[in-house]
């Protein structure tokens, strides 16, 4: 496959970036998108051009590091996959592909396609945990009966890898799908109910302070989420937030 790539290049967080056009030849349809980027970077380096910076780590869809906005969609045109799981067979020979960083005020560009998603870390630090002692005196997991439906929903919410595709794809750059998944994965389980009130209040407060937009229920985040996190989590977070606000 021969492709034309329009890639966002930005030297650092302070500089003004722009789209650059590159040609790449002999791309195998079996390559992952990131492998194609690796080949492009080798090509650029042999030409004496600075390689394109992009986030990646596990390359098997579980770490949440890869973060490209490809042809107008977070993680590209495929569904329920991260960029590292996207394969070049999803494109046609001769295609022009635009590649941009995840864009949000709360995700400033570090360089090229790499963005700073530490705002997610700060939201997690604000309440995305349970304060129990797990060192040596851990209770047997089966000692606390948990409804199968709740356990399944909590597990589904916990599959969120925090990649930020929800923010990137939302027209308002809202982080509510991410935050609601983190709220839900704890609040559905007995161990998480103890701190449920503080958790939702603190995490939403931090989310607002980071400068994310507001959810308008377009549902785009749910469609583009590589892990299929449901909007049901946002409704749950809203319920919990209202309850926590009233409870005080």
């Amino acid at each position: 496959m021969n492709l034309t790539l329009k890639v966002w290049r930005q030297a650092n967080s302070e500089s003004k970036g722009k789209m650059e056009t590159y040609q790449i030849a002999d791309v195998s349809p079996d390559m992952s998108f990131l492998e194609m980027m690796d080949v492009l970077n080798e090509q650029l380096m042999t030409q004496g051009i600075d390689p394109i910076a992009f986030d990646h780590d596990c390359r098997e869809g579980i770490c949440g590091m890869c973060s490209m906005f490809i042809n107008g969609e977070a993680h590209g045109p495929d569904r329920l996959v991260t960029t590292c799981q996207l394969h070049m067979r999803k494109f046609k020979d001769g295609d022009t592909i635009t590649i941009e960083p995840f864009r949000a005020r709360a995700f400033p560009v570090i360089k090229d396609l790499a963005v700073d998603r530490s705002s997610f870390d700060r939201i997690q630090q604000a309440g995305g945990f349970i304060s129990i002692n797990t060192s040596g005196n851990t209770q047997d997991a089966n000692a606390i009966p948990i409804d199968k439906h709740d356990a399944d929903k909590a597990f589904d919410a916990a599959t969120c890898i925090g990649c930020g595709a929800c923010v990137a794809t939302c027209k308002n750059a809202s982080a509510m799908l991410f935050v609601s998944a983190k709220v839900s994965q704890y609040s559905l389980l007995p161990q998480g109910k103890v701190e449920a009130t503080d958790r939702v209040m603190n995490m939403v407060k931090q989310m607002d302070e980071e400068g994310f937009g507001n959810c308008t229920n377009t549902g785009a985040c749910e469609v583009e989420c590589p892990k299929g996190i449901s909007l049901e989590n946002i409704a749950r977070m809203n319920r919990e937030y209202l309850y926590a606000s009233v409870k005080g």
Partner: protein
Amino acid sequence: MTLVASSIGRKVAMALSGIFLVLFLTQHFSINLLSVFSKSMFNQVSHFMGNNPVVQFILQPILIFGVLFHFVMGFVLEIKNSKSRKVKYFTYKGRANASWMSRNMIFSGIVILSFLGLHFYDFWVPEMNYKYVEVLPLDQNRYFDELVHKFVSPTRVIIYVISFIFLSLHLFHGFASSFQTVGVNNKYSVYIKKITTTFSIVVPFGFIFIAIFHHLR
């Protein structure tokens, strides 16, 4: 952070004012529909709504506040949301993952707001003038003729038709969305979506039918 200052609090306020306006729209539509079936009944109900002190001095101010609140909060949220992404995408394929209605609520809202300006000019201003400025005598039989008179102009009817199409698009997303915002997303949500579709078609197109019906009479 207080509830009203938080993102969720503002969204919930927006949703609740939207649900309130849906209830008002249902009541307004029911009364207008009477004009198709019975002139005297429409006059009777309109006279009651126009002169009952509870409606006039309690419900009407609440309604005006609800309308203003919904629009002002809509703009406040839109401005905040637009600031959340300073650098826009070179390519953004919104239609790949969300409906046109959900992505353009501010646009359909502005059309509805413009229409409300015309609607106030057509009905509310003359009504206030009749009752409180000129203080003309009570006339229980004037409402139907005033309504029909407004729909003589084809231009006005066309504006009404276009505006109600945008209201329909606004409701298609807004009605079900408001329930999601207040935390309702469960096995009954499928019925909320069905009610949303039915309401979004029946009420706006019902208003359109009434306008065209009186224009053609």
